């Protein structure tokens, strides 16, 4: 689990605020194939994958709360759903530590789907009396595709923004374990020779 240093907290706060402002002021007004990209689950997914479950969950909660406040939506819905998204992405990193190049794409699509479905379920639980339409499902699918395409560049951008503030990069940690933890043939050389 990554320790939340003050520098990391500052960068996460700035990243979250900037992400929500760009989303609401620009991205939401850019329809692509009848849907919009949604940066929030992608940002939260990226932070979860890079910083772990604690930072991912807290970042998801913060981004969700900020989105609810600026959008004048019911407080608590986005924060609850994004908290689950960030925590899930963080646990994936801690438990599996996936290193494939396309992992952010797959996790980004899963995060978008989880956010879309979770938000819809919350709305229905709160009593929105509108039927689910094919248009809604189509829109969810279109957002999923757009977000999947954006996931890789956005992950790289978030990684760049947080670079230097993350004390424990998964790949660096793995390399360290390999070279110093007795797994490397170099460190096992004397034993092998004997």
């Amino acid at each position: 689990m990554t320790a939340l240093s003050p520098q990391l907290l500052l960068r996460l706060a700035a990243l979250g605020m900037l992400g929500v402002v760009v989303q609401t002021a620009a991205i939401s007004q850019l329809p692509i194939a009848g849907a919009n990209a949604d940066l929030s689950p992608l940002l939260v997914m990226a932070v979860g994958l890079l910083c772990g479950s604690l930072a991912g969950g807290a970042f998801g909660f913060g981004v969700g709360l900020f989105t609810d406040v600026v959008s004048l939506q019911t407080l608590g819905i986005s924060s609850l759903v994004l908290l689950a998204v960030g925590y899930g992405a963080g646990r994936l990193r801690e438990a599996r530590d996936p290193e494939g190049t396309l992992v952010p794409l797959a996790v980004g699509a899963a995060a978008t789907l989880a956010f879309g479905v979770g938000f819809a379920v919350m709305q229905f639980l709160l009593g929105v009396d509108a039927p689910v339409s094919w248009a809604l499902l189509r829109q969810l699918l279109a957002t999923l595709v757009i977000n999947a395409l954006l996931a890789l560049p956005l992950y790289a951008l978030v990684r760049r923004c947080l670079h230097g503030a993350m004390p424990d990069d998964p790949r660096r940690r793995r390399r360290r374990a390999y070279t110093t933890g007795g797994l490397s043939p170099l460190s096992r050389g004397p034993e092998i020779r004997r």
Partner: protein
Amino acid sequence: MYDKTVRRRRAVLGLLVACSLILLTAYFGESGSGVLHSVQRGTSEILSPVQEGASRALKPVRDLFGWFGDTIAAKGQVEDLRKERDRLRTELAQTEVNSADLDRLSKLFELDGALGIEDLGPQTGRVIFQSATVWYSTIRVDKGAEDGVRVGHPVINEEALIGRVTNVFGGTAQVTLITDTTTKVPVRAGREQAFGIVEPASAGNPTDMVMKFTQPNAKIGVGDRVVTRGTEPEDHAASRYPVGLPVGQVSRIEHEGTDTQEIHVRPYANLRSIDFVQILTRPRGANG
């Protein structure tokens, strides 16, 4: 050490989930003037200049995307628009005759139906924010209480009615679109101006609305114009929407002629892409 880390992680998770649920319950339970609503409005007002600045700065990017989208959409619309033009030419001839009659009748009965938009105190505003999810069909415009905007004022764009003001701040206002699940607009349609209520057909679909509570024998056909009725259906008091604002066009009718008939309406306004709007600050006219 590991146990401590896991315990800490779970404690933080539990705390954040509890915070979300408390916020949700408290927000849902309190009135519009409650503490959380006030904090939300205050924060939103503070952030409005930032959003406005970001919206202006990112306008060229939006325009570029809009240009690509419009070009693709325009190709598909050419044939439909040609047919529409031919139909409107025929209707225009009939309308000119009716218009002369209407002028005389309006004066005779002192109807408010002859109001022009200028009499309704239009305030032109720019859209600075659009809700990120399809569940909240809201936009924010850069006109607010300082410009005479009040809660309930109807909002139009260059095409048709698009919604009503639901929150007002100093220099900005929140507009809930007609496709929001909470919106209901009293309308009339067809040759005999049959009355009904237009509301969204389903969540997340800005191109399909449904006109309900019409008489089964109402003479309404596909292609008929749907305009605001100007009065509320229950008590015939003046509606928040002035009479005669265009809303949309009948696209199809399900269960026609029965008590459960559903008249589907396609809004004239493209609610996915709104740049400028007009808020009618005197919805009852100059004397209202």
